[in-house]
């Protein structure tokens, strides 16, 4: 650490000031506001100043939790996010290992294809996948011989289609990160293990996996965060939540409540629920880091 100098007590805070101002104003304050609105009655009337806002206590939460649709959406969100995370991690890790097994040319091809998928904006990816799976003229149905099967009609097949798109655009982050991590493992360590007669599986389990654990924790938690709050793909691919709202996830549900039906307080209550779920995941993550003896 830098030796203390007379003025250095203040220097870090000067460096931190811009970040703290931005985060305070655009993250901390909005979180406070979100919590506040969730306890108020706040609809179009109050927003336009027609009626004063009134304190509702836990009324909005009671209304939300009393609504069967909320629980259905919550369950769908958790299951869908979990499926996305697991698939993304499995595909990403498998392909990262594959990248280490091939020569430069196939590696470059796979890397560039993955970067292309990663670079594709969510709206773009969503519409392209809809075109690919179009019942009338999409190439996928033709290749698979599915006739005019509509993927977006059924609840599960619509979720499955979105899942495919999500995995496609998010496995590259996992693949590139894990690949970079494997490459950072010194070659001598692996060669020594191989000379000692360790099998590939044994090398992976006993040498690579422990060294990669911090990276795996990072990509897992990032995937959880990203997949739990997917909005664009669901909104675009299922046209705002699917037929008869069968493909709603919490985020789209909150948007529909707030901006489509002006029930800002209910939308905020949903936001608070999302925030709390991710907070719990974060605390578990922090514990994991701590038990691994990571120094902050």
């Amino acid at each position, binding site marked *: 650490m830098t030796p203390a100098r007379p003025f250095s*007590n203040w220097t870090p805070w000067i460096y931190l000031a811009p970040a703290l101002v931005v985060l305070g104003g655009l993250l901390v304050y*909005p979180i406070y*506001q*979100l919590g506040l609105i969730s306890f108020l009655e706040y609809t179009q009337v109050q927003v336009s100043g027609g009626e004063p806002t009134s304190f509702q206590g836990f009324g909005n939460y009671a209304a939300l939790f009393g609504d069967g649709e909320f629980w259905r959406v919550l369950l769908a969100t958790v299951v869908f996010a979990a499926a996305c995370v697991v698939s993304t991690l499995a595909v990403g890790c498998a392909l990262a290992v594959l990248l280490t097994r091939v020569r430069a040319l196939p590696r470059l091809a796979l890397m560039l294809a993955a970067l292309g998928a990663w670079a594709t904006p969510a709206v773009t990816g969503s519409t392209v996948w809809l075109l690919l799976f179009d019942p009338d003229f999409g190439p996928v149905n033709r290749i698979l011989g599915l006739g005019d099967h509509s993927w977006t009609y059924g609840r599960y097949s619509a979720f499955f289609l979105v899942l495919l798109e999500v995995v496609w655009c998010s496995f590259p982050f996992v693949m590139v*990160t894990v690949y970079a991590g494997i490459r950072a493992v010194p070659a001598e360590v692996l060669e020594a293990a191989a000379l000692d007669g360790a099998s590939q599986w044994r090398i992976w389990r006993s040498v690579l996996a422990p060294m990669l654990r911090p990276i795996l924790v990072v990509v897992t938690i990032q995937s959880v965060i990203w997949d739990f709050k997917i909005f664009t793909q669901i909104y675009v691919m299922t046209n705002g939540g699917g037929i008869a709202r069968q493909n709603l996830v919490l985020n789209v549900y909150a948007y529909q409540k707030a901006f489509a039906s002006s029930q800002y307080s209910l939308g905020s209550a949903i936001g608070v629920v999302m925030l709390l779920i991710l907070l719990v995941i974060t605390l578990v993550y922090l514990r994991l880091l701590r038990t691994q003896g990571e120094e902050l």
Partner: protein
Amino acid sequence: MNSLVRRPWRLAAEASALVIAAVVAFPLYWMVLSAFKPAGEIESSEARPWTLAPTLDSFRRVFGQQEFGRYFVNSLVVACTVVIASALIAFLAATAVTRFRFRFRTTLLIMFLIAQMVPVEALTIPLFFLMRDFGQLNTLGSLILPHIAFSLPFAIWMLRGFVKAVPEALEEAAHLDGASRSRFLWQILFPLVFPGLVATSVFSFISAWNDFLFAKSFIISDTSQSTLPMALLVFYKPEEPDWGGVMAASTVMTIPVLIFFVLVQRRLVSGLGGAVKD
């Protein structure tokens, strides 16, 4: 490591890598192909992986669409401002938390970590009212400001590793040579952590360029302030989409990001490697 893998296995691995690369690239190929197909051909029931009469019609329609060029510029302004601002702010903050010991340092780090987990989308409602109160609705500022805030925690967390990797002795030497602290900061430290800045900028660029929810929620009456994702939806009407237009607009929207990615590709891989080694 390759030398340790037996030859038939390696060939099988390479063949599957190429097949997977083709599958992964296929949606992008289909997007570009469809953008060049004449209108009737996309919607014919025989989806062909080539086109008989490539045409620029769809692109003409897209650029003929009022203000498409403007949306494009808006998107660029938003993404570039977010990238530059969050890189500079994150660099200063990462330096503070790695090179100084002060009270609340650990608390701050934990708070940055927790801030990373905040679901941006959940804050759309309070941000909407905040932007309204500051007269920022329907301005690019309403898209830029939140994205700076949301990319900061991750950027700070990621840059930490890069700042840490610069030896303390370097700062001592600079100090002995009479360099002021700010000179050290900008002329020595900044260039050294630049690869890390490139890697973090990928994430802030993507979050800003992809933004759909904020553009949809905050740009409500003055559509000249809108961005590309909204322009795309002009052509995508769920009931009867103009697929040629959608795919041409998608192509135009994806290419700048692709170029950016290819340019930073090496830095990105080494950057992620550097961040994870920490």
